[in-house]
């Protein structure tokens, strides 16, 4: 379980996170929803210790993050984390060199799944394919938790569909996933849990299926209620 406890973060004078708390379970897809600039990316970065916090604490399976955690949790940002002049093969080689949890079999499977040519240079890829390479490099790690920043934004419809398929496959199964999005759109059915963020705080944390079952409300209905109050 990932526990985010009362985290606070300022950029200059501006408070971005004013005490955000939520949890994300293993084996579930948790979605952070909020408008752009609400600090979703900052939360993911903070979980990975890529940016310092002013207050609060984040625990992964009960422990603060350290160097060993990176074999258990990975982050797929919305920009590429490999050198552009590398080929996909070289990028995979790099991952294999540095991570013991790298799973080449899974990587090959993902290559097929996304129909990527491993000899192509990363800088020559389309936006959709770049996003897929990014996903590939993250998902081929045998980690318990995967964080994805806006995996669906700014890419073409077909890539979107292919990426959505990842979420219903064994590639994600049994892992804990946190994704961020500013528009829930067609991924409603993929989510287990929704965390709504507004003005630096969690305004609501709920199970998508429970909202439908108990209140007959879609995720968007709940959002409408929360944001239009």
């Amino acid at each position, binding site marked *: 379980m990932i526990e985010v406890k009362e985290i606070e973060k300022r950029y200059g004078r501006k408070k971005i996170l004013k005490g955000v708390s939520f949890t994300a379970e293993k084996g579930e897809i948790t979605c952070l929803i909020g408008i752009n600039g609400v600090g979703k990316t900052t939360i993911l*970065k903070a979980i*990975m*210790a*890529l*940016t*310092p916090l002013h207050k609060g604490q984040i625990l992964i399976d009960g422990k603060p993050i350290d*160097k*060993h*955690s*990176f*074999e258990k949790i*990975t*982050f797929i*940002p919305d*920009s*590429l*984390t*490999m*050198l*552009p002049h590398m080929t996909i093969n070289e990028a995979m080689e*790099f991952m294999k*060199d*540095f*991570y*013991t949890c790298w799973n080449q079999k899974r990587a090959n499977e993902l290559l097929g799944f996304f129909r990527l040519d491993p000899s192509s240079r990363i800088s020559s890829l389309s936006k959709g394919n770049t996003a897929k390479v990014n996903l590939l490099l993250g998902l081929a790690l045998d980690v318990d938790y995967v964080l994805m920043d806006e995996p669906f934004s700014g890419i073409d419809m077909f890539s979107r569909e292919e990426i959505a398929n990842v979420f219903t496959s064994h590639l994600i199964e049994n892992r804990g996933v946190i994704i961020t999005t500013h528009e829930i759109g067609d991924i409603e059915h993929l989510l287990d849990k929704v965390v709504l963020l507004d003005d630096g705080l969690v305004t609501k944390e709920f199970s998508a299926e429970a909202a439908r079952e108990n209140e007959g409300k879609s995720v968007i209905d709940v959002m409408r209620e929360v944001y239009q109050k």
Partner: protein
Amino acid sequence: MKKYLQLVNFEFNRIVKLFTVLLGITFVAQMIGVVVQSRSYLNLANEKMYKEMMPQAEFLESFGQMSFLQIAKSSWFFGPIALCVAGVAFYIFFIWYRDWIGKNTFIYRLLMLPTSRLNIFFAKITTILLMTFGFVAVQLIMIPIEIMVLKAMVPNEFRLDLGVMEVVTSIPELTLIFPSSIMEFIFNYGLGLLAVSVLFTGILFERSYKWKGILAGLLYGALAVVVLLLPLLLHEFVLNNFFYPIELLVLEIIMGLLVLSASIWVSGFLLKKKVTV
């Protein structure tokens, strides 16, 4: 340790292009220097001896023999060395900033590697050292080759042959790069390593705290200089030449190690707790 070596290998591969280009420029420019300097000397000799009918002995007396020093003092020789020095100086900064700037955010990957983040620091500083020693070593190989070309161009009687050591030790600027004693080597390159470690710390301050970080970096640099000079200053101004030279040296080495450890510790802390992507 294995991850550190992998990182060094990786970082070095990233500069190999720049490195070879600079070496290529150095080699070509210095070769041109050898040819140009030799030619102009020979032209001068021709002019004096055949047009003005100056006897060879008189020519050698008034213009001297051609030696490698004339080449080594020309900008054909020094220019590329300065370029390499500038290259290293530039790369000290670029080796960090290249991971942050532009579209690719490779720093994410580096910071998410399952290894101590200090290894990134060590790998980058090692790369700078490797680059520096690489230039120095190749330069040392180039000089004898250049001397050979000189020998082929200028006839024996017009030439004063010097060994590599003689060339290197007779130009003060070169002794900085090619120290003649072990002590000097430790001193020059130790100081260089210290400077790089302090600069790296400064860069990490900036990467952690942006504008305030620049200030913190400058303060840290100033502090490092003061600590390093402290024994000398005390010796000179407070204690009235209290120390023997050897004691002073030991003190300086201790201070140097202190500054180096402080840089490593602070950098490690910043990388682990404060740096932001």
